[in-house]
């Protein structure tokens, strides 16, 4: 090929790339008229360009579909994800909701303890009799949170300055961030069991433990904590409850409480107690202070859960458990599998919030089932996700002649009683 042809072809490619009409270049046109080879090359370039353009255009419906799908996701559940993700303080609120969820879980357990030990009797009495309390709490590897609690209210103050006020009667949470003067309201509704704060929950656990005959109480000896001579007792019942209480040897007032695996696999440590302190009610005021801006208001309704929540919960579960369904359906399963769930989510590189939202999804499904007022059947154990022929769950809605049957691929169908699947 002549050098001139080489130059012309380079130029033609640039013209095509930059969408310039070669007619604007007289020398170019002149050459194309005289050189059939270059003319052919030019037409090939144009054809290639057209084919590739057509190919890219053929993908337009896909791009439109991507956009529609994303918008759909954002409109529905994801929007909450986003709201939550975009504010750090919401993280705490979500954690709080998780805790509330966990209190529900804990309530599912048959609980523990006895009062044979004199020390235990005195210590538990102090815990049970207090109406108001301040203490520090550390959940897992989290920060130390200063708490002020009454029977139905709780205020948490984090080292960052962020405060969260929980009013359990009103089912409301107010989160205040003094660093940027922002406030956020969270409203919870439809919880199957009215939640209480972590300390009240602990208190009720102690109450039941005290009356339970099989509780094991062991002395742990003595040690100095913050220059105080303390004695320890270890109270436990099988694997579900395991609490160590270190108390002042002189007056039996608890100094340090370590509740092993109180939330899933996570330990909760309470310390720096002040019992029966005078608490001004304004501490729990849910009004947004004047100089604060409200940035978010979230409603979490657990009352109107639907089959869709059930399906989503199952879908989430199988995605975490190698396409296997849970062997049983009750709230305790989250606690039982919390380690596996957490490990899997960690492997996926999820943030704490993402993890929390995943757990909430599973919880919503379990709460949906918990709230069903009719008998239900579950045979999902050993069924693999995707099995469209095997029914895993069914129930007969009130006033309905047919059953709602959910299959292993998570499609749901109305089935007449005579055609119900045989139980395995």
């Amino acid at each position, binding site marked *: 090929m002549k050098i001139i042809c080489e130059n012309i072809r380079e130029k033609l490619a640039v013209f095509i790339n930059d969408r310039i009409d070669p007619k604007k270049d007289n020398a170019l046109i002149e050459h194309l008229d005289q050189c059939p080879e270059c003319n052919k090359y030019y037409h090939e370039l144009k054809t290639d360009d057209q084919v590739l353009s057509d190919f890219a255009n053929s*993908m337009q419906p896909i791009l439109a579909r991507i956009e529609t799908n994303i918008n759909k996701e954002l409109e529905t559940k994801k929007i909450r994800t986003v709201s939550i993700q975009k504010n750090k303080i919401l993280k705490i609120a979500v954690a709080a909701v998780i805790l509330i969820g966990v209190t529900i879980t804990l309530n599912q357990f048959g609980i523990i303890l006895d009062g044979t030990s004199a020390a235990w009797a005195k210590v538990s009495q102090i815990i049970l009799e207090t109406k108001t309390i301040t203490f520090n709490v550390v959940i897992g590897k989290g920060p130390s949170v200063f708490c002020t609690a009454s029977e139905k209210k709780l205020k948490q103050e984090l080292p960052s300055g962020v405060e969260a006020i929980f009013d359990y009667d009103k089912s409301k949470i107010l989160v205040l961030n003094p660093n940027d003067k922002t406030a956020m309201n969270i409203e919870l509704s439809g919880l199957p069991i009215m939640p209480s704060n972590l300390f009240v929950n602990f208190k009720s656990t102690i109450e039941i433990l005290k009356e339970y005959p099989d509780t094991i109480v062991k002395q742990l000896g003595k040690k100095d904590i913050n220059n105080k001579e303390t004695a320890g007792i270890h109270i436990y019942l099988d694997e579900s409850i395991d609490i160590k209480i270190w108390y002042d040897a002189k007056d039996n007032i608890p100094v340090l409480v370590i509740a092993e695996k109180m939330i899933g696999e996570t330990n909760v440590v309470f310390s720096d107690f002040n019992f029966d302190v005078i608490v001004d009610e304004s501490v729990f005021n849910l009004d947004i202070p004047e100089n604060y801006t409200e940035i978010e208001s979230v409603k979490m309704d657990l009352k109107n859960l639907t089959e869709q929540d059930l399906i989503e919960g199952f879908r989430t579960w199988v995605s975490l458990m190698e396409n296997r369904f849970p062997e049983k359906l009750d709230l305790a399963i989250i606690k039982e599998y919390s380690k596996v769930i957490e490990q899997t989510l960690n492997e996926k590189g999820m943030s704490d919030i993402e993890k929390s939202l995943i757990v909430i999804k599973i919880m919503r499904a379990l709460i949906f089932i918990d709230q069903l007022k009719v008998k239900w059947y579950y045979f999902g154990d050993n069924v693999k996700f995707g099995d469209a022929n095997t029914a895993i769950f069914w129930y007969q809605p009130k006033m309905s002649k047919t059953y709602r049957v959910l299959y292993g691929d998570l499609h749901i169908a109305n089935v007449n009683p005579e055609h119900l699947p045989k139980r395995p």
Partner: protein
Amino acid sequence: MERCNNKKLIFLKGNLDRNTYTELMREHSARIFAICFSMLSNREDAEDITQQAFLKGFSDIKQLRDISKFGAWITQIAKHMCLDLLRRRKLNKIALKQIAVDDVKDDPTCDDKKYSRLQSALMQLNEEYRLPLMLYYFDGKSTKKIAESLEITVDLAHTHLSRARKKLRQLLSTKRGV
């Protein structure tokens, strides 16, 4: 410029709404899809990862301080997801080229069948050539844009495009011959 400033303002307030994000998505989705398609050699996966990348982008938007960096930022998210998928594919020992050529499914929304030969040839190009070509055709047909996206000179973008077309033509005529 005015629009960008407004966006930035919305951003700084931490009140990014869905409409603003949709606008950003429209601006960048074709490019992200082109990148994913180019990296994954598979249209369906590219579609999936593009979606996931934008959803993750929305979730993590707070991490982005400067709206003018959205393009680069979302690209990084998408590339990271593609690499992750490629790693998983490698683990599953799936031959990538095989997916590209064989995975032509009936999808009423696209002309996969019509373009299956072209797709197959595209996937045989070196990524060095494939990516500029796809960026060019999917994202506004501008060499300047490609150069910016790939952080190369405009001249080099021209060269890559020309070589990509040439190689593609060779591949298609060889196939035709067979």
